[in-house]
C-alpha cells in the first residue's frame, strides 16, 4: 500500500497564472488533498484527472513551472497542510 496521509484533511491553496489561468478559467482555489497525493507531481496528475482544459494544461508534456510557498521546486516536492501551490508557464518578464 502506498504511503498516505493521516485522517486530518490536508488543505492547500492553488494559484494559476497567465495563459494557464485563462485556460483553466480560474486563478485561485482551495483544495483538500486526497490522502494519496503526497507530492507536487501527484497533485498535477490529480488535477489532470479533472479532464477537459485540466487534462490538456496539466498533461505531463506541458512546459509548466510550479512553486510551493513561493519557491520554485522540483516535481517530487512534498506537500503539507496550508501550502500555497502555484502553477504557471515559463516566465516572460523584463
Amino acid at each position, binding site marked *: 500500500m502506498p504511503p498516505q496521509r493521516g485522517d486530518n484533511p490536508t488543505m492547500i491553496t492553488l*494559484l494559476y*497564472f*497567465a*495563459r494557464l*489561468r*485563462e485556460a483553466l478559467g480560474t486563478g485561485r482555489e482551495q483544495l483538500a488533498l486526497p490522502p494519496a497525493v503526497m507530492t507536487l507531481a501527484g497533485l498535477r496528475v490529480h488535477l489532470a484527472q479533472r479532464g477537459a482544459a485540466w487534462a490538456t494544461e496539466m498533461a505531463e508534456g506541458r*512546459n509548466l513551472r510550479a*512553486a510551493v510557498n*513561493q*519557491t*520554485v521546486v522540483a516535481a517530487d516536492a512534498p506537500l503539507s497542510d496550508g501550502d500555497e501551490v*502555484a502553477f*504557471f*508557464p*515559463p*516566465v*516572460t*518578464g*523584463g
Partner: protein
Amino acid sequence: MNVRVQQDDFDISAEIAGMRRGNPKIGAITSFVGVVRDINDGDTVATMTLEHYPGMTEKAIAEIIAQARGRWEVLDALVIHRVGTLQPTDQIVLVIVASTHRGDAFAACEFIMDYLKTRAPFWKKEITPQGGRWVDARISDDKAAERWKT
C-alpha cells in the same frame, strides 16, 4: 525597499540621484531599462499587459539581487518592474547597480537582468491586430542565464 512592483512609471534620474547621494563611495552606476517594442516576432503590438505573482515576485527578485551581491562588489541595487497595461515605447523594467568600479556594476546588472528574465514570475500578454497572445519564453533567455553558472 530595493524591489518594487508597480503600475506607475519610474524616473531613473531620481533613483540614481538617491543612490549616489546615499553613498559617496559609489563610482559606477550601471542600469538597464526594458522598453515595450511596437513589433515582436513580426507582429505589430498595440498594447501589452503584464501579470505577476504578488509576494513571490518580490521574493524572487530579492533573491536574485542577493546572489549578485554574493558574486560582485555591489554598493547598492534596485529593481523596479511595472505590471498592468503598457504601450509601445513605455518603460517596463529598471535595474540599477552601483559599485566602486564599473566592471562589477556591469556584470551584476546584466546578471540580475538575465536571472530576472528566467526566474521572476512575470508574464507578458501582447495585444496585436490578431488578438491577445501570451508571449512565449525564449530559449535565448535561458541561455543568457546559463552563462553565469561558471
